[in-house]
């Protein structure tokens, strides 16, 4: 490692990346430092962005939530962001432990681009636009165009993740995840579900059960037609069960050291049924 730049502003971070476009960006360190400590990675240039104030900002408007790349999991849970993007707060709550949540950031979760990144299904379900900046200016893209494979992004050399902009639909949001215990767990299967009562749609995205973060679009469309939107927006149990099976069909899990494909497919169906029932339980339309 030949130099470490601690950027104190977005300009400083961009300048450092412009002079070393191959530099590795370091945010909370919860992924990168594990690899450095094990000797698996030894970047020549590091640009630390944890102290860039512009990246640590967030804002909430009537129909849009902007979360800076440097916002930590703790902040997602403890600021008004938790009310504006409840599924993001629920996902943040399942990450690691308090010290991990104090360090890890939304931008880091995006940059690592693991299929098990807990905020990623939430971003997909909230139609996130990922904002990046670099030598060629600002680019915006959906999560599908940002995460292009297992731990692979479409970031170009010298580019930096700035923020994610999220929808703020009128309906309940759920994030659910399966792992061996409540804390310190990397997801074996995860799911985010969002109800939008104005658009009369349901949006559902999956984590840790495919190479990317798939949306269960067929199941979304199917269930939207079976919700009685005019009368309290309720869902029959049979519909919820069938929804689970249809969501599981959108997964393409593998066997690995954390779980098996068969268990993950089963788990994601259970999570989908559970999330749908919670999102449309009594009062679901009223507190939207």
């Amino acid at each position: 490692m030949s130099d470490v730049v601690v950027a104190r502003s977005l300009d400083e971070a961009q300048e450092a990346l412009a002079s070393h476009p191959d530099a590795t960006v370091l945010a909370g360190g919860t992924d990168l430092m594990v690899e450095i400590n094990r000797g698996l990675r030894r970047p020549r240039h590091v640009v630390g962005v944890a102290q860039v104030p512009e990246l640590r900002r967030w804002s909430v408007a009537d129909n849009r939530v902007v979360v800076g790349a440097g916002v930590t999991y703790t902040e997602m849970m403890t600021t008004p962001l938790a009310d504006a993007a409840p599924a993001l707060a629920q996902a943040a709550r399942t990450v690691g432990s308090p010290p991990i949540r104090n360090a890890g950031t939304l931008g880091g979760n995006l940059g690592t681009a693991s299929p098990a990144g807990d905020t990623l299904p939430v971003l997909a379900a909230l139609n996130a636009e990922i904002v990046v900046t670099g030598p060629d200016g600002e680019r915006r893209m959906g999560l599908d165009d940002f995460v292009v494979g297992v731990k692979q992004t479409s970031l170009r050399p010298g580019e930096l993740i700035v923020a994610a902009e999220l929808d703020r639909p009128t309906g309940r949001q759920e994030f659910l995840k399966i792992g061996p215990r409540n804390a310190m767990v990397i997801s074996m299967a995860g799911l985010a579900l969002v109800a939008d009562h104005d658009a009369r749609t349901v949006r559902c995205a999956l984590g840790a059960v495919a190479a990317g973060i798939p949306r269960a679009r067929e199941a979304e469309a199917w269930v939207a037609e079976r919700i009685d939107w005019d009368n309290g927006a309720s869902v029959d149990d049979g519909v919820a069960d069938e929804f689970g099976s249809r969501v599981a069909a959108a997964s393409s899990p593998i066997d690995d050291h954390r779980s098996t494909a068969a268990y993950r497919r089963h788990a994601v169906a259970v999570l989908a049924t559970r999330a749908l029932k919670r999102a449309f339980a009594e009062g679901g339309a009223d507190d939207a």
Partner: protein
Amino acid sequence: MPDPYSLRVNGVDCEVADSDLAESLLFVLRERLGLTGTKNACTEGECSSCAVLIDGVLTCSCLVLAATAAGQEITTVEGLGDGRDELSVVQEAFVHEGAVQCGFCTPGLIVAVHDLLEANPDPSDGDVREALSGNLCRCTGYGRILAAVHSAASTKRSQP
């Protein structure tokens, strides 16, 4: 060798010379500055035995690139007592409640409990379990640790 940099640890400015820039804060605290209270176990954020406070925020020092902590206020377990030879209320409580067996996880727990009681002077069992969910102890079964936290909280609340 890269240029030396300075870290502020327990209120003292410490120069870090002859170091490799890839070193974690945990490594620098122990091997460069001789502060061995902070323990090295998993080096991947799983156990919290290396917990410190950085600008008052509970952090796993193994996950901090040391050079990026320049200019921040770092507090280790050595910096928590009232004086060099005095134990803090939390440390006293751990001793009296028998919350220490092999002792390896203890410094990380002490730092985490200080952090918890700073924010929440009267934590419930659930609050304590949540706050310490990242601290692994393989000896005690956590029962005595829970008792020590409640005892420390009660002592602190009774102090003027």
